[in-house]
């Protein structure tokens, strides 16, 4: 039913198409990049990682503009292909957004279910933990914790750049999840508390359905709406958060291409060399906008009373 409503929502359709486009760009980034022509100076096709300092002058500014070899020009200082950076840059945003939303949804739902259904001490403890996490000045803490986590994970070992950026990537997801599950847990807890009193749950108990089945077969399916809604809101939020952390230097690291990092790098040259900054800003804004509008539509579809 919600699905049918969603299908009738024009905004939702447009947003889905945009998101799909970004997903396609992310998945087929190598293919798209290979469509660029061979660079006349370097004599090779551009890729996402190879630096071509010969394409920038001594002040780091590119000497070549947008061309068939470099659809968006090349990166100041390093001379990497900006279109490749942009296309590959969609990947972390999408992966982090969706994976973190998925994981934090699982954590939030599980804890919320347990707290709401069991009540008593379990509820008290989980609620306290929720309160506790909500009281932390998250941004600062996250900024502080990420390097510590990275170090802990590296466990004294020496890291190659690729290992570093992979560790960072997962650390970031873990951090987003660790600091992102509370809202949903609270919501689920409340819903479960009221669902628990609903007569169909009582009926299941009266029949003798075991607790675990009640939680997962009777109650959970009724939370699909709020869970999907909250997950759909979480995705753009995480994407934004990742970009912000990358901007503040605690997010992804070289050589990973990411919009947040590009924005951080490029912000000063926004007027001097606009091709660097704006594609990522536009990509990020558009993706986040589409995801949040879609989130709204999903909420409307699941909760018709809240519609426009």
């Amino acid at each position: 039913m919600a699905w049918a409503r969603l299908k009738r929502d024009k905004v939702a359709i447009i947003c889905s198409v945009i998101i799909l486009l970004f997903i396609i760009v992310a998945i087929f980034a190598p293919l798209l990049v290979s469509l660029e022509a061979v660079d006349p100076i370097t004599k090779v096709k551009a890729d996402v990682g190879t630096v071509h300092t010969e394409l920038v002058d001594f002040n780091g500014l590119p000497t070549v503009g947008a061309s068939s070899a470099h659809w968006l020009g090349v990166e100041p200082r390093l001379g990497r292909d900006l279109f490749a950076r942009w296309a590959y840059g969609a990947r972390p945003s999408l992966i982090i957004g969706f994976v973190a939303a998925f994981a934090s949804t699982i954590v939030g739902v599980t804890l919320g279910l347990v707290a709401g259904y069991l009540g008593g001490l379990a509820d008290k403890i989980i609620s306290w933990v929720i309160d506790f996490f909500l009281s932390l000045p998250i941004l600062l803490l996250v900024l502080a914790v990420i390097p510590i986590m990275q170090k802990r994970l590296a466990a004294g070992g020496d890291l190659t750049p690729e290992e570093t950026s992979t560790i960072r990537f997962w650390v970031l997801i873990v951090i987003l999840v660790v600091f992102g599950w509370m809202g949903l847990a609270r919501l689920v807890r409340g819903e479960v508390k009221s669902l628990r009193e609903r007569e169909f749950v009582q009926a299941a108990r009266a029949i003798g359905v075991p607790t675990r089945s009640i939680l997962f077969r009777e109650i959970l399916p009724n939370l699909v709406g709020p869970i999907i809604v909250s997950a759909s809101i979480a995705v753009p939020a995480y994407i934004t958060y990742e970009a912000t952390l990358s901007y503040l230097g605690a997010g992804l690291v070289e050589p990973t291409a990411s919009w947040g990092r590009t924005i951080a790098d490029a912000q000063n040259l926004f007027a001097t060399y606009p091709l660097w900054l704006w594609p990522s800003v536009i990509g990020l804004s558009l993706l986040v906008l589409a995801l949040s509008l879609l989130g709204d539509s999903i909420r409307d579809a699941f909760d018709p009373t809240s519609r426009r």
Partner: protein
Amino acid sequence: MSDQTLLKVTDLQRHFPFREVQGLRMVRATVKAVDGISFTVKEGQTLGLVGESGCGKSTTSRLVTRLDEPTGGSIEFGGRDITHLKEHELRDIRRDVQMIFQDPYSSLNPRQTVGAILSTPLRVHGLHQGKEKARVQELLELVGLNPEHINRYPSEFSGGQRQRIGIARALAVEPKLIIADEPVSALDVSIQAQVMNLLAKLRNELGLAFIFVAHDLGVVRHFCDQVAVMYLGKIVEYGDKKKIYEAPEHPYTQALLSAAPDINVARGIAPKERIRLIGDVPSPIDPPSGCRFRTRCWKAQDICAQVEPPLLSATTEESTRAFREGGVHLQACHFPEVKTDLVAEVPA
């Protein structure tokens, strides 16, 4: 209808502790939702439970089905004490005692198909293994629904149909006792009768015992053999239907009966003399001392505030009469009103 006692409830209590803020202090208090009630249900018999909102009817139902644990008293089912059984020990009881809920909307899981809803009890108790679907269809037929609707969701049914699904679910495990907590209150006038008829039919065909909770006195009168009138967590009058309705002895029962509007007024029957009660039901947190009804009772005297009247036959000295009439009739009032003309009506 055998004379075997199926359910014996003795001095059942359920107190809910909670904290309340009074002025600047936080005080612990208890809601005495059910405060010492006793009754028995025999096989095939129907006990009606009436009383105003908040008097503890639902709590009683939940206690008897052991969805909630009593804080006092005992519940015996089929001779077995089930008062404090653990969930896993309750499995057998869960087969024998089932519940029908008030709200046909919230008592069915909106995310499960009718088939899933009805096969859950079968699965849980390992009944009709391998033939669950057939049994589900059989159940649907039994409650007068189209067996082909097995894959539909509750939202695709009307209120009356949903209540039938709820009934089918209760029947799935072939229980001996069904507790129906206001099963028709939420239904439309024109549908109520359909469901009442279904329940009556099943009772007769399957020989079920019922505890039937309602606030509509007419419905109770129609359906029950015995009636217990509750007020603020206590049974104030208990007895055979005929006696309660025709010769209510407790002032509260009298007030309740007189307050119910009567359609027959339209047919020229003079309206009953209505007993006007003053005020609302007091809070179960802090019930009045002595007789709980005294705050609204026109007969109240000093003793009512001091001594809590026990649930007794009004005419103990005439116990022979009760015996002669072949029925029970107990009430809890210091000043019961015994209708003597009824005695005359009873054939000697």
